């Protein structure tokens, strides 16, 4: 830093130029390090997936005989762990989309009631949501497993949908309450004077105006459900009821180590979240920063 101050004092243009270049150079160097750091595990997936089965233990930085055969095996379900791959892929979609729908529905109704209707004990609900929000989900896994058996929902997709919706709803309530502060209360009042009942206000005024927040929360819920492993694994145990996440982790129990197949499956499984991320990146970032933007 003394260099900076003395540089200022010397004030020679050459010094400034050198300083700017070195700062820029350091930034680019840091950028390259970050790029390598971020992409290494992702590259490793490709490296293994493109290996043919005999080369897995060759230990090279680039597959000696790159082949897409493992992707063919996955897509055609040509391996016993993968016999139900597309069915399980469909299950993942069902879980993801249902979790999204349930979270949006329950979350928007609850936040509408607390935020827009005068409700004396509304804070209790917000506090309950806050508690759910900070409890790590894994700590509830064991009792949850028992309870799903009591409810008779074990090994049924709805158990995962309900569990994950429960964990996603607090976030939905927060984002919705933040965002709805930007919608003028006068709209509700005008509608009421015109004789609308609360359902009509919710359905025709509140929901359409909440669209950006709905997209942010919907993306979040979908990603959460698609990427979640623990609850999927605990609730779903037969090949027909499994989601891709559970099927994928089965490979780890295998003795024959078809790692290339596992990584090919993993890449296909990771594609929807990546597409979702690139498609809705702005909304997701907005969801995270909604409070910050508005102060």
């Amino acid at each position, binding site marked *: *830093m003394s260099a900076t101050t003395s540089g200022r004092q010397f004030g020679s243009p050459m010094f400034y130029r050198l300083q700017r270049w070195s700062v820029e150079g350091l*930034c680019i160097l*840091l*950028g390259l390090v970050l*790029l390598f750091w*971020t*992409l*290494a*595990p*992702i*590259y*490793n997936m490709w490296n293994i997936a493109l290996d043919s089965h005999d080369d897995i*233990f*060759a*230990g090279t930085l680039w597959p000696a005989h790159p082949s897409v055969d493992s992707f063919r095996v996955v897509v055609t379900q040509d391996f016993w762990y993968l016999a139900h791959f597309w069915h399980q892929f469909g299950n993942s979609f069902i879980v993801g989309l249902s979790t999204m729908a349930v979270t949006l529905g*329950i979350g928007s109704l*609850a936040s509408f*009631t607390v935020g*827009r*209707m*005068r*409700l004396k004990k509304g804070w209790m*609900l917000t506090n*309950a949501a806050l508690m759910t929000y900070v409890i*790590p*989900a*894994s*700590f*509830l*896994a*064991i009792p*949850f*497993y028992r*309870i799903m058996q009591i409810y008779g929902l074990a090994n049924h997709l709805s158990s995962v949908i309900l569990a994950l919706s*429960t964990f996603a709803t607090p976030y939905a309530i927060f984002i919705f309450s*933040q965002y709805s502060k930007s919608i003028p*209360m006068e709209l509700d*009042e005008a509608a*009421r004077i015109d004789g609308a009942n*609360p359902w009509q206000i919710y359905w025709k005024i509140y929901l359409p105006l909440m669209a950006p927040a709905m997209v942010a929360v919907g993306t979040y819920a979908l990603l*959460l459900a698609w*990427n979640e*492993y*623990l609850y999927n694994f605990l609730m779903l145990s037969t090949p027909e009821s499994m989601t891709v*996440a559970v099927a*994928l982790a089965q490979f*780890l129990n295998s003795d024959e180590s078809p790692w290339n197949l596992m*990584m090919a499956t*993993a*890449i296909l*499984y990771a594609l929807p979240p990546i597409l979702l*991320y690139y498609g809705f*990146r702005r909304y997701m970032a907005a969801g*995270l*920063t*909604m*409070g*910050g*933007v508005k*102060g």
Partner: protein
Amino acid sequence: MSNTLRVSAAGPAIPRVSRRPPWRLRLQGSDTAWAIAFLVPYVAIFVAFIAYPVAFGLWMGSNPALYRLLFSDPRYVITAINTLLFVAIGVNVKMFLAFLLSGFFMNRSWWARSLLVIYLLPWALPGLVVFTSIHFMLVTQWGLLDSLWRAITGSDGPLFMVSTPIAMTANIVAYIWKWLPFWTLIFIAARMSIPQDIYDAAEIDGASGYRRLIYVTFPLLANVYLVATLLSCVWTLGDFPTVYFVSSGAPARTTDVLATYGFHEAFDFGYPNLGVAAMMSALPLMIPLVILLMRRVRATGVQL
């Protein structure tokens, strides 16, 4: 799950506008019915899937004999130490790096923007996938890291998963890899909510470079930093997928954390009550953290 976050950084200098409670008209008879009907779904899932499991868990872990059994298990002691290390090192290193890198990403040149898009990928990818990939990088002498080691040094690398310290380090590094982007984004948002005039004023007063970071940016972000750290600590205490997939407890179950220890006790060894007790043993740490967190949130107006 609890992982994908959501702090919103509040502009520290901006006072919060308090709003009048909604619907200035009084909540009338039929409206109360509507309000109750709207709340029934949330209350129902809360009671069925949060309150009941929590009560059930408390009941499962209520026998004091369980804790005697637990504390006499040497593996539990190792697990508890691992969890503390995992949280203390993982969260703090991650937060500090995220804070610094958020400054780097305030650079709005095209390449920094494109880098940010790639840099955020770990956050969107399933933990199962990336942690398994990291596991494969380390687990045999054919992993990518060993290949890299051989390419550079010409000799075989260490067997990572045979050494407890290396395996634990791998867990922490993998955890940082997955969650650093997310918290960087939070700090970027927080930095963006600092009004430019504050920086302009500081510039006039002669604060630039590192002084600006220490005397302007950090004090303004301190509340966000503290709340983010507390929240992340609570979540990381219950982190499951990192250790489950990266080291899977190897070598010889010496790198377990509470969540994976409880999981194995419950579902591999058939002692669900012991598993619940293991997770309950985190409560003496977790409850103060949550209380502190709530108080900070109330006091500073940082929005969760």
